[in-house]
């Protein structure tokens, strides 16, 4: 039996993740009536993943906390490349330089997915939003993360908008000065 080459391996691994995710979305859709509830569940799953995978990312890249949104954007860009093998573009900064978009030309999660019309309110990639939000929260950044362009709904890219909300302060346990 011939061994698959490197790119073949990466592709198949990407499929493992994409197929698993697809099956999970289908299951969650079965369990919840309203699509915004489904979006919330996918976001929560993502959040739980994000608060842990951030440590993996920071450890593997010997990264410290980012000092501004530009560094944060670069780090997220590099994380996408590392974990799903696709490098998004960073752009569309606002005037205050604290909000930007990540644009994915190809989205490995949605390669084989076709969204039926009745699920137009589903944000299929909401998992990514949760992951990013959870990960950033662990380095003391509260952010709002939303999908603003969806390649399953007519756009040819997936665009995720990340906006700074506030810097979280390291809290001491109750009772400390």
């Amino acid at each position, binding site marked *: 039996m011939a061994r698959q080459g490197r790119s073949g391996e990466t592709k198949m691994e990407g499929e493992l993740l994409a197929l698993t995710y697809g099956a999970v979305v289908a299951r969650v859709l079965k369990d919840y009536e309203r699509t915004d509830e489904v979006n919330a569940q996918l976001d929560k799953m993502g959040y739980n993943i994000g608060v842990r995978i951030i440590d993996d990312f920071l450890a593997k890249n010997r990264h410290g906390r980012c000092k501004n949104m530009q560094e944060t954007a670069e780090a997220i860009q590099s994380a996408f490349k590392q974990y799903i093998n696709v490098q998004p573009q960073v752009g569309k900064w606002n005037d205050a330089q604290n909000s930007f978009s990540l644009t994915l030309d190809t989205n490995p999660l949605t390669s084989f997915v076709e969204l039926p019309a009745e699920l137009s309110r589903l944000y299929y990639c909401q998992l990514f939003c949760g992951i990013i939000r959870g990960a950033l929260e662990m380095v003391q950044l509260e952010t709002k993360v939303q999908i603003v362009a969806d390649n399953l709904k007519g756009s040819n890219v997936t665009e995720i908008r990340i906006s700074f909300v506030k810097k979280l302060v390291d809290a001491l346990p109750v009772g*400390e000065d």
Partner: protein
Amino acid sequence: MVVYNLYILGKNGQSLFYREWLREQSSNLSRDEEDKLMVGLLFSLSNFAKKMSSSPGTGVFKSFNTSKYKLHYWESPTGIKLVLNTSTDVEPCHDHLSTLYHHIFIQTVVKNPLVPLTEPINSSLFVTKLDAFIKQQTFFQD
């Protein structure tokens, strides 16, 4: 060269872990009280380092020593705090603490969804690996 004890404290000062290899003096406080004291100490020292440095962002508390022990401190970017107390002749061991975090804590705590990140660690695999790691170090003497 001797290793005395290790504290691991969470992002918000929670007690996550404590282990001692050699301790001759107890603080006469409960585990919880002692951890809170340690958190307060670290918080004060980190603030102190930040305020006293003449260049912004460069003052970072790393270690201190008294006549009898040296306290080494390392904090992950996600706020997990590692404190290792050793004898005073041990060189700064931040590399060891970061290795402990990257290779042991992440692999057995972060990667185990059954262990919450905000409560005392109850993974015996973590303890086994930690113990083995510390005992391997040149500064550990049985």
